[in-house]
């Protein structure tokens, strides 16, 4: 087979309030991943292939409109534009259409949208501790900490938990930022490090991000806003790609790069939990560990991160397992796309393989842990019925069409699943 060199995508952030430019073709890129913003609120994204540009402002507007309409409706109107929860095989009550008069009389929807969002009050008890757990990635951490200096609302504190470091490089980086607290956690494991951070922190809300992330200046403020409903115990946000320079980054972005509804808010509640309980509640849809926050009190009520899960242990799913507990206890989790972080996906394909292995191992371990805690049989159904069915279909597909794109990591993932079962029983 002829190997064509990979051409990257350009990530372009377009602020609509500053006018719509002409989009010129750039031969270095395969295309543009265009994220559309309105007064620093992300409204949608689209891909434009280089061969289909240049696009004049009018042509670009035409392409942008369908991508942003639903998210605008979601924020402006009570009904009709809500994203539906990721419920399969079960039924939740449907959103009903908006009032005709409200829709017709709407004027300058975008202006109204930003005004409306500014009116959401942040709750009184909402001081924030930001926790970043890191291990031997001082350079990336430095970028991350720098982006945190640009936050419009500064948090109460920023904690860096240095997890089983092999040198004091991380400590030296943190020393450059006087406002940032350094904590050492010699025992390896992301969940262990996070728990150390939680115990050392003082904020009413605890926000987590990763060292390979740069945060948006409004990040903290939008997370805080997300807690305006007292039933909400966890808020997650949108994770956008900081760059799409390599094939691995593109595959990650298209495949596991985040939830599909993306630009519309979602509230995961008990109704969702009960509907999906027989099939195994897909708590991982709530968000990503690189962009999440919790009320401090929730840790007192349902405990900390499960230290068998997460990087350095099972691989991942420590976040989704915590969301699972929150939902199982009847509280809500909110996904708020206005809280944005920019993630540097791993560049190398080998990392993608490793990551896929870790993901599936962690996922399977989490299913078993969730079952052990609550005896919700749906977890086992997912593990022993849904997953085998899913992978046999993909495997069949890959045997015909080849192990390309999504299926590149297929075998690794399957091994990851088996490894997860072994891991659970070895650490029970």
């Amino acid at each position, binding site marked *: 087979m002829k190997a064509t060199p990979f051409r990257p995508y350009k990530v372009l952030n377009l602020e*609509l309030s500053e*006018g*719509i430019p002409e989009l010129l073709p750039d031969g270095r890129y395969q295309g543009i991943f265009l994220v559309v913003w309105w007064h620093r609120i992300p409204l949608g994204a689209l*891909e434009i*292939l280089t*061969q*289909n540009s240049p696009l*004049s*402002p*009018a*042509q670009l*507007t*035409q392409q942008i*409109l*369908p991508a*942003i*309409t*639903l998210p*605008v*409706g979601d924020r*402006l*109107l009570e009904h*009709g*534009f809500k994203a539906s929860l990721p419920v399969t095989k079960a039924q939740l009550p449907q959103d009903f*259409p*908006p*009032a*005709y*008069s409200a*829709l*017709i009389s*709407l*004027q*300058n*929807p*975008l*202006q109204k949208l930003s005004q409306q969002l500014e009116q959401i009050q942040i709750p009184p008890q909402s001081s924030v501790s930001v926790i970043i757990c890191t291990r031997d990635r001082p350079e990336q951490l430095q970028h991350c900490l720098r982006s945190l200096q640009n936050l419009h609302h500064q948090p109460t504190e920023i904690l860096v938990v240095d997890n089983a470091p092999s040198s004091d490089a991380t400590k030296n980086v943190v020393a450059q930022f006087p406002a940032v607290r350094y904590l050492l956690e010699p025992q390896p494991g992301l969940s262990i490090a996070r728990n150390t951070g939680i115990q050392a922190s003082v904020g009413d809300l605890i926000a987590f991000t990763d060292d390979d992330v740069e945060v948006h200046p409004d990040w903290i403020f939008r997370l805080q806003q997300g807690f305006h409903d007292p039933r909400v115990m966890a808020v997650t946000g949108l994770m956008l790609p900081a760059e799409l320079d390599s094939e691995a980054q593109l595959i990650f972005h298209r495949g596991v790069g985040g939830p599909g509804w993306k630009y519309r808010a979602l509230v995961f509640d008990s109704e969702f939990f009960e509907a999906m309980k027989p099939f195994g509640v897909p708590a991982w849809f709530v968000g990503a560990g690189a962009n999440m926050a919790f009320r401090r009190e929730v840790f007192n009520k349902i405990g900390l991160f499960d230290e068998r899960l997460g990087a350095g242990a099972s691989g991942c799913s420590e976040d989704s397992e915590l969301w699972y507990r929150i939902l199982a206890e009847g509280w809500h989790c909110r996904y708020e796309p206005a809280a944005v972080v920019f993630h540097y996906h791993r560049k190398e394909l080998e990392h993608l393989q490793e990551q896929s292995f870790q993901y599936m191992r962690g996922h399977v371990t989490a299913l078993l842990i969730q079952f052990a805690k609550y005896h919700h049989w749906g977890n086992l159904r997912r593990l022993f019925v849904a997953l085998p069915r899913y992978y046999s279909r993909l495997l069949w597909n890959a045997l015909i069409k080849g192990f390309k794109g999504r299926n590149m990591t297929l075998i690794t993932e399957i091994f990851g699943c088996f490894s997860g079962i072994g891991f659970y029983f070895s650490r029970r």
Partner: protein
Amino acid sequence: MTYRIVEIEVTEPLPKLVLKSGETGFAFLLRRKGRAIGFLMRSYSEGTILCPDMLSEWIVQDLKTKLLQENIREELLPSVQGHLSFPSLTVAICTKDRPDNVDRCLKALLKLQQPRGDRPPQFQILVVDNAPSNDRTQNLVASLSQVCYVQEPKPGLDFARNRAIQETKTELLAFLDDDVVVDRHWFDGLVEAWQENPDAAAFTGLVLPYELVTDAQILFERRGGFRRGFEKIRYGKTLPGNPLYPCGAGIFGAGCNMAFRRDVLLHLGGFDEALDTGSPLPGGGDLDIFYRVIRAEYSLVYEPQYLVFHEHRREYDKLRRQYWSWGLGFMAFVVKSYHTDPLQRSRLRWLIKWWFKYQYHNLKQSLRGRNPSPPALVWAEIWGGIVGLFGEYGRSQKRVEQIRKQFS
């Protein structure tokens, strides 16, 4: 069956509508500040009263996203409007022995041609009379000083279209079939499409029903008619997500309402006269020219405000014949492209496979009563496709050669 077609302006209070005896349904063309944004149709029993509440419920159900999108467009638009001066345009109407249709078509068109202030008319009109059997069309046009007339003796729609290319000197050339009536914003729609895409070589527009007074017309419209949606689309070299692009040329629009840059038509050698032969029914000539425009790496733009109303065949038999000729014309186009465009052969093979699979699916659904088209119509299209696939293009080329000899 008769559906009443009603235009609704959503920014004004909705009307209360009552179906008169003999009417069995409503079709609505919805506009927002004059712009066409949606088309809805549904059958009701005679005497049904449709009050504003029911109507508004229906509208939000089906068009909430579009309504909001138009709202956002309005807010964003001031920042992007261009002010290029529109090039010269000729509107060519190709007709054969249907003077009443031509009369109706011209009346609506002449309203738009009215010069604004002291400026000259915004476009010229040319009627191409194709192998007429009498002089009624000629007499009709003679009575209208603003309309030019030319006769094309060789019978065939694409002979007539090519004649129009020869007879005009304007930068743009728009084609209308005689059985359409232009919307009041038709010309503005074309201007808008051109201003947003001054580099495009071809423009197609929305086609809605002129009337829905017979079963055959309602049937055709329920199957989707000529509608291609209410979103502007700019077609270029590729279309992400459509593996048959650009071979599945039916997506681009319909030949009864299309416009081109004249130099591009000349450069491409005009329309293929071996398509659209034999009858006045459309059959592949439009698909072929759209396809060649795209393959020559020009852009084609679909603009819903560039709107006409088409009088569908009233009689069931004529509709069946039209289905047949679509199948025929489509396959003739595919076979022709297969020979002239070797690079696209695998995709064209795929397209043939897809088409028959799709029609088979339609036939199955139709036999189960789940498709608006009855089996006889679906079968007519399939049969047309089979005839088209097996040598029709070659036979047609011979016929065209014969015609050329006859008239040289």
